[in-house]
């Protein structure tokens, strides 16, 4: 179970990890700047297992893989949004960072809610509100990618 951080629509990669930090190679140091342009407290308060819920088109903009990576390294368990920008979507799967497309969850869940996610079934449970929602199922190929632990292992095993 994780606490929800809620943001709006079109959260872009320049906000998730500003370009001015892209000269940093160390993952932990990078992660300390995650989301800081819209939520200065994020990296200080986020705990392992917390969940980000946002409006449509999360992760729009740059191809920087640093974006899903800093969220993963911050301990974020998953991002739930109605839609994701396509490069962010790819990158998340490729590095084994779970994302879920669910319009209802994105609409109903509020910041601070306690939420549980079952990636196998796509069921999202809002413990605070006593509700549950079903995410769009992943295509089979994405299941395979995730089950192998991301693209690096997928290529290795070929």
């Amino acid at each position, binding site marked *: 179970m994780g606490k929800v951080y809620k943001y709006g629509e079109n959260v872009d990669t320049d906000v998730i990890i500003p370009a001015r930090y892209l000269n940093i*190679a160390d993952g932990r140091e990078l992660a300390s700047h995650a989301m800081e342009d819209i939520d200065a407290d994020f990296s200080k308060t986020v705990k392992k297992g917390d969940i980000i819920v946002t409006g449509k088109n999360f992760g729009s903009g740059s191809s920087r893989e640093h974006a899903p990576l800093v969220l993963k390294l911050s301990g974020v368990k998953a991002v739930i949004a109605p839609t994701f920008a396509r490069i962010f979507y790819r990158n998340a799967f490729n590095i084994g960072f779970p994302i879920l497309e669910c319009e209802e969850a994105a609409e109903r869940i509020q910041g601070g809610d306690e939420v549980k996610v079952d990636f196998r079934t796509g069921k999202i449970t809002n413990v605070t509100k006593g509700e549950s929602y079903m995410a769009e199922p992943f295509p089979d190929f994405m299941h395979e990618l995730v089950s192998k632990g991301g693209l690096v292992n997928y290529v290795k095993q070929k």
Partner: protein
Amino acid sequence: MNTKDRKKIAVGDSELAACPMTMTQKILTAHAGLPSVRPGQFIEARLDMVLANDITGPVAIREFEKMGRKKVFDREKIALVPDHFTPNKDIKSAQQAKELREFAKAQKIVNYFEVGEMGIEHALLPEQGVVTAGDVVIGADSHTCTYGALGAFSTGIGSTDMAAGMATGKAWFKVPSAFKFVLSGKPGDWVSGKDIILHIIGKTGVDGALYRSMEFCGPGVEHLSMDDRFAMANMAVEAGAKNGIFPVDKSTMAYIRRHKSKVLNKEPQIFAADEDAEYEKVYEVDLSKIKPTVAFPHLPENTRAASAARNIRIDQAVIGSCTNGRLEDMAVAAKILKGRKVAEGVRCIVIPATRQVYLDCIRLGYAEVFVRAGAVFSTPTCGPCLGGHMGVLAAGERAVSTTNRNFVGRMGDVGSEVYLSSPAVAAASAVKGRITDPSKL
């Protein structure tokens, strides 16, 4: 093309009658070695070029090493371009550029372009003939979609995809459905590809074309120069699209012939959409009705006519980037700045996108025009577009910029603002000190 590939395409063609495809779907079919593809299908496609820069490259190199491969799949089919934070803006950036350089050397990468001969990747690769019509290209940079102007399928991916591409020469794709943009009419004075694509993004929204191809076609295409088309395909990603693509015509072939690589043995392959291909949506765009257009902060979809901007004072004007750093962009900026001065209190920064454009600016006298007008004339770099260097904004500052994103904090402080425009609007605005329609100058 070898005989085996030709046979695969021939098989594809014979089945097309039963399964009409878009231009993008045809290119993917040929590269997947399949008789045909349908939207939503997962395929693995052969790659003709795999690109990264000094920011995404080092991450890709580390992932490549994790994959346990010693050698890249083909040293001629990888392009590494240090363009973002170069010439190195600080020690950390220098370290990243060094990693890229050392990897390129160790792997004997043919298409590595050092500072001095480099350019902004998406202007450089077409100019150097590294990409051509019919190619499938992935790049660890979101504006990789630029090469759609040449009739290639090209799309941005992340560093891990780049690593897998370098290792295997292949990438996975979900075959996209498409939106069709039927262009008609001829653009008016001071209207360029940038105004057209901003106008289109204003209609679709920043996620309107999410996961889809944007296929541009129609009688208006012939009135668009290659530089116009590059600017338009470049910003397909700002509508959320997977790729933007133009049909191959006389202008395309003339460009490809003029920019044929002396190093690589590349031949263009022409693909065309089937007449009965299915599109999710069709947009009719009359180019003659489009006015010089500006995207207001903080999304590229917030478009308005430049003439509707009421006294929006600017601190900086940037003319350059992978969207608008080509010779025609420099030419129109020089035309406006010739014999004029940049307004007091405005910093005007002009950045030709490649060494060749830089040389042409010197040869044609543009460089002197810019400097005499009071502008800065810089070596190629992505620098200011992403708030890296060469023009970072302070809190409360406002820029008009020919770049492609105006997100919060994109060019510097989170309290700064970016207005996206064409080079003509940016140059006219630099002269007036406020956002200006060039026809009103």
